[in-house]
């Protein structure tokens, strides 16, 4: 089946829904959204702690401080033009969400409540500041619901439960999208003047992750398969506090409210690693500190592989009123009551700083020289602007969605208003049908679930929090072997309707290709910066590595990854911050 829209949004989380709202404000263009889930099930809904904006509702705060914290938090790999736009615009964007009805928690004076979060400081690092605007501990849920509600109000057209299989891109011009309708098994072509990618991340490449089962990097992988670059994939954030073994997120807001991390002897070990802001250091530093404690034998639990989050000194009503959801998670999944007991936690794979490279208006880049893929935009976790650099500060993902989702929506609509529909290739569905036919007709006997599990286990071990050249070289080979075995995966279920076995097999293919680009990018970067921590190159090396990685699939030599570079933007519109050692 064929469809035509001026603007087509892929993904219905925070970035996609913000983009569709803003694209639809331009009355001259038609807009539709494709999502592989129902929109309200997007992973933005799992975000808990808050959205950072220098409103200054509790204590003095300024966008300049937010900009600095974002750049320092990103270990100076953050593009400073993006950081300046972001820290200014996010203030207005938070007010806008409130005007859309978002139920923020409130201060006694009726203003939006704000709390502390990792790496948020006053006066360029002097002490912690309350910058996270929050709605209890379900801020992401409220943003997702509010944006979906506004789209219902605006009458947005949704194609729910459509799995995207291909982007139609020829000569750096994007002409549309090919997708599988899950309810019928039918292939659809969406002809569009502009396409906005807002499909989220790929946490499911790791064994322990806070990410939903649906987060398999589909659109990043499709982009990469076209011979187009992915930026900074080596920077993958581990959130310090996932529920032990399960990886379910416990918000940084828990530490923002005063929670303390303790090792087996009850020591508040963060005092040794970040003496000024302690447990509220940025995520990369806290995650590493936790792993060091575990490695040095100070972990807790049967296998001594966890650390304790202590909330017991906080008043019961604070825990229950400001952190009810995570209290429920601890009780449900661990049988632990955070009011009285310590909660065992482990770092959990959480957020991709890298992705489809874009300009500050969300335009997708085809190359490090600034060439665009005309008509293609990206925002949110699938994209790399690069706001988060080498490590994202807590609350900046929700801010990223609303600020850059909005910019991408406006830019895509403006482009579509002037553009003509490009001519589609003769058989736009050929590649997608081929993917499916191969999985359906394959006589191979390898099991997709087993391959996926091996991928997740080995990526966790070899490209996780601590990395070294030897392990990552081994991982390059493992990924190649798994890709070869993937060719022997067959789909046993012959049904057309809701063939979820087929979908999971397709998703595994995407995960494997993301793992290929990610591992090559990480092996290549011979330094330690932000979330990329190497045991064989322990220092940050600005002389050689203050630059973004651009990873391309070698289309002439499959399995080989080509790596090129793009300079970091070290100047904002009005401000700039010179790289310095990162101490807290």
């Amino acid at each position, binding site marked *: 089946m064929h469809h035509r829209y001026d603007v087509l949004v892929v993904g219905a989380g925070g970035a996609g829904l913000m983009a569709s709202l803003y694209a639809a404000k331009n009355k001259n263009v038609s807009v539709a959204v494709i999502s592989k*889930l*129902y929109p*309200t*099930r*997007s*992973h933005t*809904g*799992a975000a808990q702690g808050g959205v950072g904006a220098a*409103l200054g509702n509790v204590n003095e705060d300024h966008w300049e401080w937010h900009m600095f914290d974002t750049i320092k938090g990103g270990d100076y790999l953050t593009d400073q033009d993006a950081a300046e736009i972001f820290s200014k615009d996010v203030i207005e964007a938070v*007010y806008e969400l*409130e*005007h*859309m*009805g978002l*139920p*923020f*928690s*409130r*201060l*006694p*004076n*009726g*203003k*939006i409540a704000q709390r502390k979060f990792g790496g948020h400081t006053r006066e360029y690092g002097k002490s912690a500041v309350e910058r996270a605007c929050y*709605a*209890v501990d*379900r801020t992401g*849920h*409220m943003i997702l*619901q*509010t944006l979906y*509600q*506004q789209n*219902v*109000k605006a009458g947005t057209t949704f194609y729910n439960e459509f799995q995207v299989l291909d982007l139609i891109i020829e000569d750096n011009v994007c002409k549309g999208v090919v997708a599988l309708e899950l*309810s019928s098994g039918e292939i659809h072509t969406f002809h569009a003047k502009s396409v906005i990618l807002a499909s989220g991340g790929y946490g499911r490449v790791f064994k322990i992750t806070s990410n*939903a*089962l*649906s987060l398999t990097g589909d659109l990043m992988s499709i982009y990469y398969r076209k011979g187009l670059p992915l930026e900074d994939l080596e920077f993958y954030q581990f959130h310090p506090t996932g529920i032990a073994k*399960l990886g*379910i*997120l416990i918000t940084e807001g828990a530490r923002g409210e005063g929670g303390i991390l303790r090792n087996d002897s009850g020591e508040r070990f963060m005092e040794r690693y970040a003496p000024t802001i302690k447990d509220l250091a940025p995520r990369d530093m806290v995650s590493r500190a936790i792993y060091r404690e575990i490695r040095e034998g100070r972990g807790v639990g049967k296998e001594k592989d966890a650390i304790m989050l202590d909330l017991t000194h906080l008043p019961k009503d604070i825990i229950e009123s400001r952190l009810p*959801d995570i209290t*429920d*998670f601890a009780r*449900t*999944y661990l049988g632990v009551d955070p009011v009285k007991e310590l909660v065992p936690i482990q770092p959990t794979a959480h957020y991709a700083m890298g992705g489809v490279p874009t300009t500050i208006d969300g335009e997708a880049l085809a190359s490090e020289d600034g060439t665009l893929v005309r008509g293609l935009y990206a925002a949110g976790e699938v994209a790399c602007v690069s706001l988060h650099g080498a490590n994202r500060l807590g609350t900046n993902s929700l801010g990223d969605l609303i600020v850059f989702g909005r910019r991408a929506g406006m830019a895509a609509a403006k482009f579509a208003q002037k553009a003509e529909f490009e001519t589609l290739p003769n058989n736009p569905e050929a590649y997608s049908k081929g993917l499916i036919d191969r999985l359906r007709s394959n006589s191979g006997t390898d*099991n*997709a*679930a087993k391959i996926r599990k091996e991928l997740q286990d080995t990526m966790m071990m070899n490209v996780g929090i601590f990395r070294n050249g030897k392990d990552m070289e081994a991982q390059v080979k493992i990924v190649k072997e798994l890709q070869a075995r993937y060719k022997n995966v067959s*789909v*046993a*279920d012959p*049904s*057309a*309707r*809701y063939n*979820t*076995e087929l979908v999971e097999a397709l998703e595994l293919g995407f995960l494997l290709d993301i793992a290929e680009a990610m591992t090559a990018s990480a092996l290549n970067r011979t330094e330690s910066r932000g979330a990329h921590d190497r045991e064989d190159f322990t220092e940050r090396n600005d002389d050689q590595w203050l630059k973004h990685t651009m990873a391309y699939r070698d289309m002439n030599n499959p399995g080989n990854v080509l790596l090129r570079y793009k300079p970091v933007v070290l100047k904002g519109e009005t401000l700039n911050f010179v790289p310095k050692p990162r101490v807290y």
Partner: protein
Amino acid sequence: MKVNVKVQRYNPEKDKKPSWQSFAVECEPGDRVLDLLNHIKWYMDSTLTYRRSCAHGVCGSDAMLINGRNRLACKILVKDLARDGGTITVEPIRGLKVERDLLVDMEPFFDAYRAVMPFFINDDPVPAGERLQSVEDRAIFDEGTKCILCACCTTSCPIFWVNGRYLGPASIVQAHRFIFDSRDKGSDQRLKVLNQNTGVWRCRTAYNCTEACPRDIPITELIEEVKRAVLYQKA
């Protein structure tokens, strides 16, 4: 431990009517029912079909009837359902058309959601900063904001089973969230919808919805508050 997972199966492409299939699954007491279903799908019978996504009770995808009660498969643990050698039964939620196995047609549910105007209405000029709201006013509608639209409540309601045109508890909760928001000005329109014969008066306070809610929302209470608003406020 080992449990027997008894699943209702139905594939309209080949089955005339639903049937039962049992799987003996090795598991830990702390495993989620979703872990059991995933194990069956990945290693025993790849055709088993259900929705799932976040796997920790916030996205609402995997609502199903588990041991006779509506729950999220990712939020109920084996140890709370069965001992070693015991049986766990899993069926699709009731009152919506079964598309395949545990997966149902959600469109009528979302149609009811959209019918109550589940969005903020206030056309006054916006202030430079936020609209102020007191802590107390914010608390009045807090419970409804927890809703993840999983449909556990609506599909456990006997009135909804008998009459699928009843808007159902989930959409009334959504309406409540806005009716009682001090900033919203669209209550009159919503209360009119809820005063129709598909609206709140269908509720017979059976409390099934409240018992089914995986987010502990006191749904029946909220429905009662909406009834009072219809009676005494405006409509």
